[in-house]
């Protein structure tokens, strides 16, 4: 039964080799899947991963989709290192989008420079509040954050649905559950003529920089990581577990909220039910595939964005089912977790080694 034995030290090589291994395995199963669907795997991979990058529009979309994924994953990774599992980033994203939209809707018609900054701030507050709530429930009532963050996501979705169906429904929108289209003062400016990518990517870039510097040097980040890996040592050193919960949930809520604000003030341009294609969930995978490391997350964020874009392209030009994106995401994470086992374990040698026998 036992096929693994623990390594003396975690393998540094495997730690960084695991994501590429997971990617290769996902592609391999993907190839079989494409073949089963009657599409040549080579054609499918070309459509998924090469063709979108042959146009400037493809690159624009890549940055547009990678940006929220990277931003959210940076915040999530901080908590995951402390073993605080916020899996409700999707709900925090929606609350950020709702708060930002409130400003855009109330300030409709006002042509002032401060509308957009106020929206960004509101987005951060909205997401932060939706992270603060489970932190409070955890620190004061000991309620498991995995379950509360997820329940709050369902609640945020229903709240959004009510907002766009009743109070904020666009009267001229032929009864669709969506808000008015936002005016220019409430939108990020475009960076290139005719492309959708906008200046919100600089928020993500700034966040990456902050998290990179912060994670590498700050004492707080160290405390969080110790708290996750060695709770007893952490308590002994006097690090507060409560503070870790507050910090990780609020910070990850804020980053998700910012991402939500950037969606409504960016490519979506209004509050709608379908403003996020599951970025909050996908960012969980991005954080893990990126090894919870700020730069690793940038790489995995682009990979995940490619899966999104490829899924869209495959649907349009190969008539592949749209659900294939979710399937790839799930496979990637499963394979990664499997490959990760070999960081701390290795395959058991066939014969017991001499050294072990001598030691016994």
């Amino acid at each position, binding site marked *: *039964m*036992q*096929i*693994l*034995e*623990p390594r003396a030290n975690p393998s540094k090589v495997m730690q960084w080799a695991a994501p590429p291994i997971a990617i290769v395995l996902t592609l391999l199963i993907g190839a079989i899947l494409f073949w089963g669907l009657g599409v040549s795997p080579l054609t499918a991979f070309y459509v998924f991963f090469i063709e979108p990058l042959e146009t400037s529009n493809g690159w624009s979309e890549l940055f547009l989709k990678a940006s929220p994924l990277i931003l959210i994953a940076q915040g999530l990774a901080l908590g995951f290192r402390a073993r605080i*599992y916020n*899996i409700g980033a999707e709900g925090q994203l929606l609350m950020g989008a709702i708060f930002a939209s409130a400003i855009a809707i109330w300030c409709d018609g006002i042509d002032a420079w401060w509308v957009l900054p106020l929206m960004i701030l509101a987005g951060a507050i909205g997401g932060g509040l939706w992270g603060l709530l489970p932190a409070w*429930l955890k620190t*004061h*009532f*000991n*309620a*498991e954050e*995995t*379950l*509360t963050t*997820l*329940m*709050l996501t*369902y*609640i945020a979705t*229903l*709240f959004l*649905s*009510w907002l766009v*169906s*009743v109070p904020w429904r666009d009267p001229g929108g032929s009864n669709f559950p969506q808000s008015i289209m936002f005016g220019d003062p409430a939108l990020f400016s475009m960076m290139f003529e005719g492309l959708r990518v906008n200046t919100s990517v600089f928020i993500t870039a700034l966040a990456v920089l902050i998290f990179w510097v912060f994670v590498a040097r700050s004492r707080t980040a160290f405390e969080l990581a110790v708290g996750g890996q060695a709770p007893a040592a952490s308590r002994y050193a006097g690090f507060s577990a409560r503070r870790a919960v507050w910090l990780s949930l609020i910070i990850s809520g804020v980053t998700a909220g910012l991402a939500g604000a950037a969606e409504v003030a960016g490519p979506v341009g209004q509050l709608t039910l379908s403003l996020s294609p599951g970025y909050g*969930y996908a960012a*969980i*995978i991005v954080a*893990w595939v990126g090894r919870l490391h700020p730069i690793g997350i940038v790489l995995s964020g682009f990979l995940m964005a490619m899966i999104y874009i490829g899924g869209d392209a495959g649907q349009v030009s190969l008539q592949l*089912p*749209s*659900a*294939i*994106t*979710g*399937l*790839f*995401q*799930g*496979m990637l*994470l*499963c394979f990664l*977790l*499997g490959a*990760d*086992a070999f960081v*701390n*374990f290795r395959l058991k040698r066939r014969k017991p080694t001499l050294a072990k026998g001598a030691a016994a």
Partner: protein
Amino acid sequence: MIEHIVPILVGTLGAATPLVFAGLGELVAEKTGVMNLGVEGMMLIGAIAAFAAAVHTDGNFVVGLSAGALAGALAALPFAILTLTLGANQAATGLALTIFGVGLSAFIGQSFVSYSLPGVQPLAIPLLSDIPVIGPVLFKQDVVVYFSFICFAVLAWVLAKTKLGLVLRAVGEYPEGAHAIGYPVTAIRYGAVLFGGAMAGLAGGYLSTVYTPLWVQNMTAGRGWIAVALVVFATWKPGRLMLGAYLFGGMTILQLHAQGFGVALPSQLLSAVPYIATIVVLVLISRDRKLLQLNLPASLGKPFIAGG
């Protein structure tokens, strides 16, 4: 008033049945020390497998439910391999299973969206179903609801009164000890996780072939997560799990009937009630740390790799 109460109670049992199956399955897995957050994903995989099987057998729900249970167990297998053999983090792996289940079921389900099934007629038990109120509520349900009663009774008995139950609990409380006296801890946990998967698959299958009976993408709508929360609420006791499931089933049904009573609340607020209630219930039970500590399987969530 009585003419309102009876249909609500009748509906409550149906709405609660998926929670009963999924919750009992997760309870057994957690009793042995394994927390599987993939219940939602396994339910969805079970739901689409059951629906597909039932469609291909002209609406045979028994074939459908069996396929659902089998698919749920199969979906739990990679989770078991990753967490039990490879020592992967249980929370992360369970989450991965849910993400995978959402994707896979949507992928397979795309070709089944337009189908519908006949559903299952209630089976009135002679004499007993004639008792006022209790009769129609308890004894005029579909067969699967009766099956859920049996599952509960058998499980509660096995856990409390049999040697198997004792071994299961020992593995969860003190895996090193159970291993030392010769019980195959990993194999027992495999069994419990696969059982949990089968029960989640059954729960999903009930939704898609009996309760709705349709396939809709993401049709479980968080019920898998609510089932996980119910296990905490139940403090790992089957009886309390049933109580919790019926409480939530009742809430779902009340919410559907609310409009009929002239309650002028937005439908979204009513739909949010089960999720809000889940949080409230978690808070109420978790705030009593002693109660939780006393009942929590001691090794819950911790990997166990024998030897080395």
